[in-house]
């Protein structure tokens, strides 16, 4: 009875509520759904490619914005009477509007100046511009996305943010291993997903999905992670993330990577542990080292994150 009642109350499909109850329990599901209705905080990342952080934050505060530090360097929660996206700071690329969980993904990649980095699903570039900032615009980023229209937004975001070390390809990233001979120090796979974690922003997602979408997305994500790991140097790092909380798109994909490749999961400081099981399916213990973010717990989108190290290079 309860899933049906909650589904009606929050305008969701019943199967989704059943899944939430499996993850959060009944009380947690209500808290989750209440927070989704209420919405989460807004966040901005200060782009230090464009200016000094103290000066940019000072100017935002001068305009009446209230900024609070977060656990990700350069990222602040922001409140104000108007949207920061119409500020001069936004137009000059001094700030980027980006959820805290998303910024934590690019931050967790741990890039260094001068490295070679692959961003496999990069448009519209929230994480690519962040990576460039962390690399101080040095080294090289290959930013790939299969959608031509989304790549246009990526290009303009790179331009706005003053990114100079990035090459953009329009390509299906599953094909990359056959196209690129040399390997990368780090790979970010911010995979296409059901987007279940962003229903607080995009309400259409409450009803737009059907149950089999999870398994369809899951198989694409497995192909993408295989491609990403094949392009990584031995000892290299791959960060896998989705804005979904569904285990098929997350723990299951990481379990697949553990099974097929010689990888280890590096635990991250923030976020809840990955799930051990879901609806009768069990995942390897190791998978609890992955991280989950929830609106009602972390005041972020629903988000999943795993940091993998490739122990043995794949021969291509």
């Amino acid at each position, binding site marked *: 009875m309860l899933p049906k009642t909650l589904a009606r109350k929050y305008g969701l499909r019943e199967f989704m509520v059943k899944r939430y109850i499996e993850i959060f329990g009944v009380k947690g599901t209500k808290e989750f759904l209440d927070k989704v209705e209420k919405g989460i905080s807004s966040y901005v990342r200060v782009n230090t490619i464009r200016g000094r952080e103290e000066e940019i934050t000072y100017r935002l505060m001068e305009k009446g914005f209230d900024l609070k530090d977060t656990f990700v360097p350069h990222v602040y929660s922001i409140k104000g009477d108007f949207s920061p996206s119409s500020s*001069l700071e936004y*137009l000059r690329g001094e700030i980027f509007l980006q959820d805290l969980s998303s910024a934590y993904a690019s931050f967790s990649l741990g890039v260094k100046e001068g490295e070679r980095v692959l961003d496999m699903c990069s448009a519209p570039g929230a994480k690519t511009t962040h990576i460039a900032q962390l690399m101080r615009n040095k080294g090289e980023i290959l930013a790939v996305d299969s959608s031509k229209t989304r*790549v246009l937004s990526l290009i*303009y975001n*790179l*331009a706005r943010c003053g990114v*100079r070390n*990035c*090459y953009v390809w329009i390509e299906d990233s599953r094909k990359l291993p056959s*196209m690129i001979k040399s390997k990368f120090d780090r790979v970010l796979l911010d995979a296409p997903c059901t987007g279940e974690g962003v229903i607080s922003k995009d309400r259409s997602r409450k009803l737009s999905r059907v149950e089999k979408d999870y398994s369809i997305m899951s198989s694409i994500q497995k192909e993408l992670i295989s491609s990403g790991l094949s392009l990584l140097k031995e000892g290299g790092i791959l960060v896998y993330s989705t804005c979904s909380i569904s285990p098929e798109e997350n723990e299951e994909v990481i379990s697949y990577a553990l099974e097929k490749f010689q990888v280890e999961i590096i635990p991250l400081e923030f976020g809840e542990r990955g799930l051990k099981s879901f609806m009768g399916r069990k995942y390897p213990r190791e998978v609890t080292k992955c991280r989950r973010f929830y609106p009602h717990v972390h005041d972020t989108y629903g988000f999943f994150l795993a940091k993998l190290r490739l122990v043995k290079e794949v021969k291509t």
Partner: protein
Amino acid sequence: MTPSWFKSLKRWVENLNSEYEDEIMKFMKWCLDSEILIKKENLILLLTSRSSFLNRSVFSGIPLGEIGSRERFIPHPEISSVIGPFLKKAYSSEKGAVLFTYGRDLFIESVLGYSEMPRDEECLLICDAYGRDFGIGRYKRGERIIVNLLDRGLYLRKGY
């Protein structure tokens, strides 16, 4: 052979009526000869690094603009970071700078000062009091106005 898109860019630069036009064109020509000023699809790019990824890339470096219909050069807001150092500057009040990024012209009353006194019809880099640039405008002495030629608000207005 100078490519036709470079001639379009040159025409656009000439139209700026800048006192430093020769320097700008010398720099552009050097970039062209060094093969760091290139055309990819219809984008004109100034490369900032070189890599084996470049061949397949649709984009890299700084986008200066695009080539539109009848080979017309349409500038992109980022061109100001490349030619800005060659242009005289007009420093605007915050309110003037905000309106400028809405695509409006700048009234002389909003100008706090100039780096050098502009000639009539000369194009200037529009900055705020902190020296941050927001676009390019044409100084019209008689009309006491700086006409908007290009501004960073395009990022929003074009829905990028």
